[in-house]
């Protein structure tokens, strides 16, 4: 069967196509060259004047695993309230957001898949899979329809790694352990959260700076970053080490963030939700924007990529592996409740509800800092559009965020409504940049796919999976991106006019570099002595993901360049 998408305006940055009018042919779920004239075209969509992009890819969104389930259990009132709020969005504190800016912060797995595909997103990546909790994360993602999934396994606070590092183990051993973890947890990347800090909190340390030692292991976050970034690089995984820096959310933390950029000695690293790590201490309130310094450093350091973690106003919940900093942040919980967990000498988590208010000085400035970063980082291939769902805002706010980036007058109107002290501390008004459709396509498609190493996604070239989103070109970019005309998943029409017309199940993307399995001997002994489950039960097989007939594991290899 051949489908023809005719006369669309193609935005495909991977092939430098910036709004050219072209046809796309789809066969067996893939984009193919123009078939011979003798072949029958089964289905034609006339896309004259429509904007055509690859399906969008969210490279950082908390869609699976224990944290979100804790949030769901702790906050049932949100769902009920949010249903109402979406119906009559009149909360004065949300006046910057619009009905498209849904505040459904703790969606079920089903809703997650539906809301993503309705916006033209065809893949999302869970950035914080605790290796010990990986099976649950994959179960939740397995119950998430419509989109492709994948995740980054958290290392760097686990006892096994920290002991290797403390014992100055050979890098090869560490590489083997990192590769083994990728295989065992069915992940596509490695993440480190507050390097060494989650572990340090269990030993009653309350903050950990980049060059400060974890009291028990006597290793520093810098050493952890060096070791893990090198492992990821040497194993040849496409996705750079995903780094949630030390000192999340703390005033003055921009210095830590700048230092962190130097920790990998030039090897690639991705600094995630960098907005939460771009705070200075200037002004009367000792809280200021350091977006300019961070953006300047990002522009200079080509080995560093970042996603923003934009906040938007309204009620949300923050779910993080960073138990150390979330324990501090729990003082600002709204409503006043939080869950902090120490987990299996492996990791931790902290779930803290937040209500970001535009009349609150700190919140208003956080909003501005995120946008300052977006507008000041020059290379759209190295900055990614995220709200760190649900930590900054639910992912359903993306269309609103895109309009803020693409529409200066809309942005300035919103800015003018902020807390006045915050306005005085931000240069957002002086930033004239407006993102183009081409740049949005880089940030949300081509760049994300390239970063993660999804060779056949995020672009519209021959051989690519036919994950395609079609929009009507509207000056209201929020309305445009909220409701695509069509979304195709692997060549099948699944969304029409923003509504799901067919339910499909995506695949799970993984990376499985070669390694020496001799490491498993030592791991087996370690598990038998110190862990509370059997090593064999820690590992997740491909069959576990595909057994229900819906899921499928896809393994990616890094492009040889």
């Amino acid at each position, binding site marked *: 069967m051949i489908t023809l998408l005719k006369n669309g305006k193609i935005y495909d940055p991977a092939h430098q196509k910036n709004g050219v009018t072209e046809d796309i042919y789809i066969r067996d779920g893939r984009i193919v060259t123009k078939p011979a004239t003798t072949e029958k075209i089964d289905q034609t969509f006339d896309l004259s004047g429509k904007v055509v992009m690859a399906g969008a890819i969210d490279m950082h969104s908390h869609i699976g695993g224990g944290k979100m389930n804790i949030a769901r259990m702790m906050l049932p009132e949100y769902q009920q309230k949010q249903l109402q709020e979406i119906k009559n969005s009149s909360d004065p504190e949300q006046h910057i957001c619009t009905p498209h800016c849904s505040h459904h912060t703790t969606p079920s797995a089903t809703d997650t898949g539906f809301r993503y595909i309705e916006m033209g997103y065809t893949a999302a990546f869970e950035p914080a899979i605790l290796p010990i909790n990986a099976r*649950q994360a994959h179960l939740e993602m397995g119950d998430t329809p419509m989109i492709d999934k994948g995740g980054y396994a958290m290392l760097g606070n686990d006892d096994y790694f920290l002991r290797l590092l403390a014992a100055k183990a050979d890098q090869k051993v560490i590489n083997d352990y990192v590769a083994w973890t990728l295989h065992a947890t069915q992940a596509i990347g490695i993440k480190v959260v507050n390097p060494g800090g989650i572990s340090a909190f269990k030993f009653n340390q309350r903050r950990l700076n980049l060059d400060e030692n974890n009291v028990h292991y006597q290793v520093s976050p810098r050493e952890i970053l060096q070791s893990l970034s090198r492992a990821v690089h040497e194993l040849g995984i496409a996705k750079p080490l995903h780094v949630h820096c030390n000192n999340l959310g703390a005033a003055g933390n921009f210095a830590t963030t700048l230092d962190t950029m130097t920790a990998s000695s030039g090897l690639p690293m991705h600094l995630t939700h960098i907005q939460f790590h771009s705070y200075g201490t200037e002004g009367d309130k000792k809280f200021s924007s350091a977006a300019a310094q961070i953006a300047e450093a990002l522009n200079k350091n080509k080995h560093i990529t970042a996603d923003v973690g934009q906040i938007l106003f309204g009620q949300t919940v923050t779910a993080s592996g960073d138990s150390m900093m979330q324990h501090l942040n*729990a003082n600002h919980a709204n409503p006043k409740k939080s869950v902090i967990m120490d987990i*299996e*000498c492996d990791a931790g988590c902290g779930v803290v509800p937040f209500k970001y208010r535009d009349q609150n000085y700190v919140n208003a400035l956080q909003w501005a800092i995120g946008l300052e970063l977006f507008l000041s980082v020059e290379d759209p291939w190295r900055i990614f559009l995220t709200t760190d769902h649900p930590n900054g805002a639910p992912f359903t706010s993306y269309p609103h965020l895109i309009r803020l980036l693409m529409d200066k007058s809309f942005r300035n109107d919103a800015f003018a409504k902020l807390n006045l002290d915050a306005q005085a501390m931000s240069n957002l008004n002086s930033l004239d940049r407006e993102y183009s459709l081409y740049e949005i396509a880089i940030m949300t498609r081509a760049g994300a796919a390239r970063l993660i190493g999804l060779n056949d996604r995020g672009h519209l070239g021959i051989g690519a999976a036919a994950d395609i989103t079609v929009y009507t070109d509207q000056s209201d970019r929020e309305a445009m991106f909220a409701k695509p005309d069509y979304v195709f998943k692997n060549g099948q029409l699944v969304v029409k006019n923003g509504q799901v017309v067919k339910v499909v199940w995506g695949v799970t993307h993984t990376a499985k570099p070669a390694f020496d399995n001799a490491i498993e001997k030592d791991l087996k002994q370690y598990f038998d002595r*110190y862990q509370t489950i059997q090593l064999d039960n820690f590992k997740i097989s491909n069959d576990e993901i595909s057994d229900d007939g819906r899921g499928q594991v896809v393994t990616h290899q890094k492009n040889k360049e």
Partner: protein
Amino acid sequence: MVMNNSNYNSTQVNATCPACGLLCDDISIVSSPQLTANKACVKGVSFFKRAFKAPTDTLPLIAGQASDLDSAINKIVEILHLSKNPLFAGLGTEVQGMRAIMRLAQKTNASLDHMHSEAGVRNTLALQNGGWMTTTLAEVKNRADLILAIGTDITSSHPRFFERLIENTDSLFKQQPPEVVYLGTTQDAAINVENLSKLPEILNALNALLHNKKLQVTHVADVPVATLQSLIDKLKSAQYAVLVWSASMLNIPHAELTIQSITQLINKLNETTRAAGLPLSSGDGDTSVNNTSAWLSGYPTRLRFNNGMPEYDNHQYATSKQLADCDAMLWISTFNPHPPIFTKAPTIVIGHPDTQFERTPDVFIPVGVPGVDHNGLMLRMDSSITLPLKKLRDSKLPSLTTVIAMIEEKLSNEVSP
């Protein structure tokens, strides 16, 4: 443990034991010539013994009469088809079973409640009111230097807790096993109370002492204040105290407030040192059911579906409330042969083949026991770990998932009245 059974093979297989929330996965089962469950505790042994003893070819019953699977499914579909307000109760199942049940509940607008939710909801209410700081089993094993067991001896409900986590076990961060202090009704409890209804007073006093408040009495619930003060001193000087409670033991009014007193104590301790809570579970898959419900619907149990949309209400959708209103009940208990709770409404039971009935249900379909007759997935009581349950023998009994899928298929073929 040893029992006679000649039908099963003699190779040793590893098994995960679903008999309590510890979910021990170091069990090895040899089923021939005698069934042995190496390393299993008394609860585990009795679970495997009962499951293996149950015949694998038990027939479904319709009104007490032996029937076949298709006829039983037809009868169930007939009942559910007429029902406007079905109650799905018991819910003794694992993740895969709960996934199937959720789908059916959505299609039939059922309400959902677990047989042990009276206890589970106490924890849920505490969680929803203030949150908590908790820990997991490997942290207890490697890090805890003080265990405070509140209103529970732990062993009765979780028999291998001490063997696996406390005594004679290798530990990463400490030389000595932790000190264990009991606060409860047993004679050897360091803080001995007459009954658990005294716990609120004791915990309030402990919270006051931790806040450096001077108490105006010498005794609280007959416990000398000096004893309570010495416990506070211990908790403050511990590097990692773990406070264990069992919601199912707290059969006292407003137990959720007592649990909240415990979590407040933990929060305050964490201002200066480290401490964490460990709520014990009640079994029959309660943790798995609650978690699966949360990711599939957005809510933990208790909930119902209304026009396919989930609605959450801890009070309204309790089995005790729904029994009066429901016009059909589906009772599920696959790990243990728990008989259904009584209702006048038509009753369907899908459960353990060994289930004995006081009153004959309209339909009974015996199904395989997860982790013996078929594979499954289960969450441990600390919700941090999900482990596979493995099939250990060939069985003709269908799984709960299979039966629910058959019901679903037949139901969707029925024309709405």
